[in-house]
């Protein structure tokens, strides 16, 4: 076969898209509820996840946890462990990680297993011939410590908080607005530490070929992960290859290179054999990122007409010492609702508990439900229906920066959603009862910023008229394989079964990776551009303008000529490379995804148990690329919200900062019976400022707001406001007569 003919397109989003290419193509596959191409592999257990495909000769590592919360490791019973059956190595290498890298860090996180910052921190890796031998030896590890746990800070109330200047903002005079307002609320909410608890715990297997390491792991962003692993090991990124063909859920916990990857690579290098390291569920809870707990003070004011005059949002979150990430709780507050007088405060405390990092919709996931609950409180104070109150306060443009919105469909979502849900049947607080159950309805807006991240992909059209998509993008359960296949098929006019999508290999063109709900729009745009470059080449061969070319079902059609792609290609391979970059539209417009969420709950007057009876949501997030995976993303996000409202909380022992409920039996994510019928509706939407596909993020949006709707429904049912998440039955019980 001859060398491919290469074409490329790079596009920077400096201007809104006016081409509407995806509204003009003919295949009609994009947006359909196409099944996942890899679905049969996953449901038959034959899709191999990170720890399910080991090279011959693989040996196994198990991480040893620190039993103190702060101090230094001064000694280790290495010799005893080395004498145990099958043990090959006890590794305490200064390149091992204190905590996983933060998302998009592209450099190693804090390293060194000798200084202890939190209980459970990995302090060694024991490697043995079998998994069982490794774990047995690791459980027999005994470290000597210089134990400074008594100086540890384990509870937020005892932490010292910093207020980084760049993260404070104010406009007008909020205090005065609050004083003069007809109605005002000044309330404090609390949200707990939470864990991603993805179905697949972190795992990696590493092997070396000379100075080159290959790591098969479970990661979300291979481009930056490659740089992080290289930096951690002190080698060039050129000598690192990461493979993550399937990822069993990430939610942000696999954004950065983690303990298991670095430890496996170090051990494999030392032993000259492939080494697999998988985290136990308990280690996943204890050593990978948590979502920070938060304390949030919300101040809102409005006039007698229900028009808002002030918005204040102060947040207190935490992280380990020297960790730059802090949960951006107030991210959506500056632009969601009107109000001349505004204040944003952000405070970071240092704690000796497991590292905090990004978890599904960092910021909005906990900031939006809290502001939405406070909005409900203000609506109630003002005696205005909560939907109407929100509608009255949707700004024309970003009230903090003055920037126009690329698109703001919040009002449409609220109006349409209220109608679909049957909001008009909502009664006064405490007015609806069925037997022992109090019934209530609640609403919350859903807001999440929309992002575009540089992404590159290759689309190869082969001489037989089939195509291959190649990019280092990951599919973390979101549906990347589906949508990238659909985008290429749509632009090239191919049935989906003639397109193969290859992902999860860092040797492929670097994509955005999966995170921040930017993956579909960013990597999708790069695939669209790559396919578009090929399409333009085909137009040339058909002797027509690209606008006059129709590609459908493997045929190229121009004027009255219709040829198969194989005929047009004449034995050639066309290889298109597409790159998308963000540009001025991210700066001169406020971009966000919008939604309205509705919940109906029942609260037991006997036990305080809260059951969610139904959920409904209306979303506007640009073009929908696959109706089924989009809906699945929203269902997953809203279930996430149920957990946040009612169940999920890392219980921390205040004496040493340890997470006591670090398994799925005691850390409660919603189970089947907790999840009611969920209705999801997408508005027909396009955002030309977002990217050339005019699509936006989905998965995170769906979890922003759900918990707010649920606690507002609880307030409607009981007449009581619960300002501490999750609303467990003991909190309800306390307030029931």
């Amino acid at each position, binding site marked *: 076969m001859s060398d491919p003919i290469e074409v490329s397109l790079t596009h920077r989003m400096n201007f809104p898209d006016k081409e509407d290419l995806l509204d003009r193509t003919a295949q009609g596959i994009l947006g359909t509820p196409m099944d996942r191409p890899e679905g049969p592999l996953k449901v038959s257990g034959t899709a191999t996840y990170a720890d399910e495909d080991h090279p011959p000769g693989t040996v196994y590592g198990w991480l040893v946890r620190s039993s103190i919360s702060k101090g230094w490791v001064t000694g280790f019973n290495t010799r005893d462990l080395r004498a145990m059956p099958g043990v090959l190595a006890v590794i305490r290498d200064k390149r091992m990680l204190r905590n996983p890298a933060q998302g998009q860090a592209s450099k190693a996180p804090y390293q060194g297993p000798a200084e202890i910052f939190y209980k459970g921190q990995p302090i060694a890796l024991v490697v043995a011939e079998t998994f069982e031998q490794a774990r047995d030896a690791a459980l027999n590890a005994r470290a000597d410590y210089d134990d400074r746990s008594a100086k540890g800070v384990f509870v937020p109330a005892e932490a010292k908080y910093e207020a980084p200047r760049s993260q404070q903002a104010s406009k007008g005079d909020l205090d005065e607005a609050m004083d003069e307002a007809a109605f005002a609320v000044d309330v404090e909410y609390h949200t707990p530490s939470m864990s991603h608890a993805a179905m697949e715990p972190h795992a990696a297997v590493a092997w070396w070929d000379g100075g080159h390491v290959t790591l098969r792991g479970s990661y979300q962003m291979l481009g930056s992960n490659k740089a992080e692993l290289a930096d951690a090991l002190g080698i060039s990124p050129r000598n690192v290859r990461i493979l993550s063909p399937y990822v069993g859920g990430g939610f942000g916990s696999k954004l950065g290179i983690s303990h298991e990857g670095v430890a496996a690579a170090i051990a494999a290098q030392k032993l000259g054999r492939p080494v697999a390291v998988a985290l136990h569920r308990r280690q996943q809870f204890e050593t990978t990122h948590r979502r920070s707990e938060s304390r949030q003070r919300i101040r809102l004011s409005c006039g007698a007409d229900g028009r808002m005059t002030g918005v204040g949002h102060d947040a207190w979150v935490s992280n380990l010492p020297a960790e730059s990430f802090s949960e951006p709780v107030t991210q959506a507050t500056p632009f969601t609702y009107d109000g001349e007088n505004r204040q944003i405060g952000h405070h970071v405390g240092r704690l000796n508990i497991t590292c905090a990092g990004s978890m599904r919709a960092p910021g909005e996931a906990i900031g939006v439900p809290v502001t939405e609950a406070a909005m409900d409180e203000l609506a109630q104070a003002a005696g205005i229906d909560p939907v109407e109150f929100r509608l009255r306060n949707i700004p024309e443009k970003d009230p903090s920066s003055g920037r126009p919105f690329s698109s703001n469909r919040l009002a449409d979502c609220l109006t349409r959603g209220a109608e679909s849900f049957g909001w008009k049947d909502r009664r006064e607080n405490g007015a609806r009862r069925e037997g022992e159950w109090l019934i209530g309805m609640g609403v919350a807006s859903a807001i999440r910023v929309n992002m575009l991240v540089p992404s590159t992909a290759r689309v190869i059209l082969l001489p037989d008229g089939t195509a291959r998509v190649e990019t280092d993008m990951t599919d973390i359960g979101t549906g990347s394989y589906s949508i990238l296949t659909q985008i290429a098929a749509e632009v090239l006019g191919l049935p989906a079964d003639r397109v193969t999508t290859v992902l999860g290999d860092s040797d492929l063109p670097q994509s955005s990776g999966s995170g921040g709900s930017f993956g579909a729009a960013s990597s999708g745009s790069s695939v669209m551009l790559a396919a578009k470059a090929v399409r333009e080449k085909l137009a040339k061969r058909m002797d027509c303008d690209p606008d006059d070319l129709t590609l459908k079902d493997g045929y190229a059609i121009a004027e009255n000529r219709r040829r198969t792609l194989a005929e047009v290609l004449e034995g050639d391979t066309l290889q298109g490379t597409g790159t998308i970059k963000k540009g001025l539209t991210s700066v001169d417009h406020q971009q966000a995804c919008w939604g309205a969420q509705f919940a109906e709950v029942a609260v037991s007057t006997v036990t305080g148990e809260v059951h969610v009876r139904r959920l409904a949501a209306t979303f506007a997030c640009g073009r929908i690329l696959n109706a089924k995976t989009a809906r699945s993303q929203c269902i997953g996000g809203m279930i996430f919200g149920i957990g946040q409202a009612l169940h999920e909380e890392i219980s921390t022992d205040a004496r040493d900062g340890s997470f*006591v409920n670090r398994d799925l039996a*005691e850390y409660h994510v919603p189970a089947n019976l907790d999840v009611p019928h969920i209705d999801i509706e997408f508005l027909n939407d396009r955002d030309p400022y977002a990217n050339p596909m005019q699509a936006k993020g989905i998965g995170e949006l769906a979890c922003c707001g759900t918990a707010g709707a649920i606690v507002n429904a609880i307030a409607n049912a009981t007449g009581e406001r619960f300002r501490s998440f999750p609303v467990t039955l*003991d909190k309800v019980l306390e307030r029931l007569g």
Partner: protein
Amino acid sequence: MKAFDYYRAESPADVIGTDARPIAGGTNLLDLMKHQVETPDRLADVNHVGLDGIERDGDGLRVGALVRNSDLAADPSVREGWPLLSRAILAGASGQIRNRATTGGNLMQRTRCYYFYDLDTPCNKRAPGSGCSAIGGVNRIHAILGASGDCIATYPGDMAVAMSALDAVVEVEGPNGRREIAATDFHRLPGDAPQRDNDLQPGEMILSVRLPAPLGGKHIYRKVRDRRSYAFALVSVAAVVVMDAGRMSTVRLAFGGVAHKPWRVPAAEALLQGQAPSPDLFDRAADAVLDGATGQGHNDFKIPLLRRTLNAVLAEATEGSK
């Protein structure tokens, strides 16, 4: 997991009188072994010893130790005569776990106390004499009744709570022959030896559980928990109430999630028995049940929760009866 010997027992005789730990469904023991909370030297696989039938025993029923939870809950005669047991089993665990878990194994289920599972913390149940981390620690799921200064763990299961209320009898055999233990007495209080969950002696094996004749009446198992399925009870109430001419002729009550064993208070039952139902009477029964109840801080709420749940269950059980 520590290395161990394994053998497959062909009959109870292969197990009784040995130092081997019987393993059936392994739904709890395997977890504990992986964490090295339990490190048995020898496992006897009892899945093939028989004892897997449910048979009539006069007016009662004899349930083999190897009957799976799913099978027991679905058994037509159990559903007919002892629906409380069926309901309690179905309130526990998940379908997959119930398919593996057995009657005998479930009785042997150990506590879910967080610290019991954490080798790096003191725990008198796991390492006698080391102390109790739950006292002064996170104790939301812990006992309010019958706890000691050495241990505040709870027995976490549901099945045994129903068996206790139903006056079931556990039939065991040891090197010195067979004996019977009332289900209510099978589990013990922690006292100063919390490492012992129950009264089963070394070398003894559970053969079966005998259910006495059906009581009739209303059977209610109400389990209050942090999520609606696959969560252990914060509080559970098992109740059988038979009404006769407007009075409660038979009352059986047992409580889960509140003590080191299924909690049974004969005085509370006696108070109700023969009386006409009333909220005031229910409240007095709750007083009797909660006699001596002590919170540990995070679990204080279990005291009012138990009272409210009991009152609601009794109201439901006596509702509409003349």
